[in-house]
């Protein structure tokens, strides 16, 4: 009789800069036989048949047709984070493989980062820091000023879970809140945060001091913010992106910033990530870039891991899968 073996789950690597965190791996190994890509490639014949799930941490391993063909018993791919634009859902569906993500766990941290970027950009925090620590600084000039967040107008493009949490936070800063969304939120939700619906994105763009993007990346939102949209924005406005780099036409953004069509940008996401060294966005004083840290806190990453584990366990036992991504 075969002893109860832990289910075989494929992951890219453990430890190092890109891999599953060591302490997460320790926990996962209590429930799974965790196989790294390296181990799998060294023993494809045996392991290929055993692997029933993929633990996809930060978009790795890359899941292509070749991999799917060599994992005949693969039932589920658990992907970290909320974005699933890196997965070919049609392909996975054809192979009968289910997919899960971690949509809600990331919302607070991502909303917090959106606020952090808006405040840092508006108040020139990074520039201020450089001044405060620069070896050349002798004094802090009185006429060095930023712009006010309190009482300003925030336009939220994409009022899903994350967008709504941003609205909640912004309200406490006495901001005027406009939003654009595929669907209007209900009256109670709107009045709870004092948000005004803009059916046309143009209206939002023209009135906002800060434009925050919190949409999913889909074919419809690809390059949602291009030259025309940037020109509709106030020359004193700031663009904040916590969605995906591809939601913005990056070349148009560079041009808009260089020509003072808009005042500044704060981007947690770009395309690609990281940007090639020498890219104009990296040198602009009025641009803050952070390395996709929307959900980067210890606590949230731990919860993500636990969610993914639950989804895999459900997927392997034929139970309803928490956070399943449907086509």
């Amino acid at each position, binding site marked *: 009789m075969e002893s109860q073996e832990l289910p075989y789950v494929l992951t890219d690597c453990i430890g190092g800069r890109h891999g599953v965190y060591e302490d997460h791996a320790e926990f996962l190994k209590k429930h799974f036989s965790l196989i790294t890509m390296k181990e799998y490639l060294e023993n494809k014949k045996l392991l290929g048949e055993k692997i029933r799930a993929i633990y996809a941490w930060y978009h790795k391993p890359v899941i292509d047709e070749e991999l799917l063909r060599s994992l005949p018993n693969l039932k589920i791919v658990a992907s970290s984070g909320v974005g699933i634009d890196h997965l070919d859902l049609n392909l996975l569906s054809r192979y009968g493989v289910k997919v899960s993500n971690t949509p809600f766990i990331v919302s607070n941290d991502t909303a917090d980062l959106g606020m952090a970027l808006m405040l840092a950009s508006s108040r020139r925090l990074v520039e201020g820091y450089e001044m405060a620590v620069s070896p050349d600084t002798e004094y802090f000039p009185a006429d060095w000023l930023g712009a006010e967040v309190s009482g300003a107008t925030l336009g939220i493009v994409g009022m899903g879970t994350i967008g709504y949490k941003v609205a909640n936070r912004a309200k*406490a800063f006495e901001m005027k809140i406009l939003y654009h969304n595929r669907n209007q939120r209900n009256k109670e939700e709107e009045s709870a945060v004092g948000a005004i619906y803009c059916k046309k994105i143009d209206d939002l763009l023209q009135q906002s001091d800060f434009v925050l993007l919190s949409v999913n990346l889909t074919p419809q939102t690809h390059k949602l913010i291009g030259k025309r949209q940037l020109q509709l924005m106030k020359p004193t406005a700031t663009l904040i992106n916590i969605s995906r780099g591809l939601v913005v036409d990056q070349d148009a953004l560079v041009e808009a910033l260089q020509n003072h069509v808009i005042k500044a940008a704060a981007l947690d996401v770009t395309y690609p990530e990281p940007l090639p060294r020498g890219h104009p966005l990296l040198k602009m004083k009025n641009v803050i870039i952070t*390395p996709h840290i929307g959900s980067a*806190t210890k606590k949230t990453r731990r919860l993500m891991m636990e969610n993914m584990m639950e989804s895999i366990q459900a997927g392997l036992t034929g139970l309803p899968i928490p956070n399943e991504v449907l086509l």
Partner: protein
Amino acid sequence: MGGGELPGLLVNEIGGIHGILHGHVAFLKKHFYLITMKEFLENKKHMSEKVQAIYLWWHKPVVDQELLQSLPNLKVIANSGVGMDHLDLKLIASFGVKMANAPRAVSSSTADTGMALLLASARRLVEGYHLAISSDTDYCEADFLGVEVTGATLGIIGMGRIGYKIALRAKAFEMNILYHNRTHRKEQEEQAVGATFCETIENLLQQSDFVMVVVSLTPQTHKLIGKREMELMKPTATLINISRGAVIDEEALVTALQTGVIRAAALDVTYPEPLPRDHALLKLKNVIITPHLCIKTDKTTYMITKEAVENILAALNGLPMPSEVLPN
């Protein structure tokens, strides 16, 4: 005295390092005859009688006995901002001169600064930025972690106007709010922000993930946060200072940060400002220092000047001043 002459307003300088902002001059000149310290010193005899008010900008001009004695018609001094530690209030009162500051103008902007620092420190925004733009491409997003803000515990030391506005903002981040203050806030005020009073500062320090210092600098608050206080804090905690540099024992802070007694610090104020260029605080990875941002926005600086003008005109017309500061 010529009829219809505007009252003389003494300022340190216009423009320059610490001078009155150029954008405010037109507004001031509507109500006052502006006199700079340079003009005053070059022509003391003629100018000294004209000065009825002083408008301080970044704590200048220095108001000492000598200056007060040379201004026989001085009625009121307006301070830009709310920090008064650079002024001898009793001395000023002894000359029968009224004093005003600008609490309404500064509170939102300063509260925003506190939140900006808290968020930037927690999420390692400055470090992240340097990583994102560095010439070394070999970094990975996956292992760069900060600490959570939503749901964390914020301890506010000093729950005045600014402290309260911070509490309002922090509540929206679902933070658990503790506060320590000379006096208890009213129950409705506490409930509105879900804040719990800590009778002792020790109690607050032990429970907080973020400690925000929002007090005035007085002899009682000088080095309020020292070695002992930092050791009471959690090793995962962040200290944020938007009061005055001297409220924190800076030497003790350096040690605490170097040895992991606390996780990080974010300082909008230091002593002195700026710090000497070889100061240890400038080199620590877990410190964010900003150049006294508190009120540095177009809107707030203008509001400060408006509030000052309101107070000065009230004093000169014998009316009650909206933001009078009494010597006690």
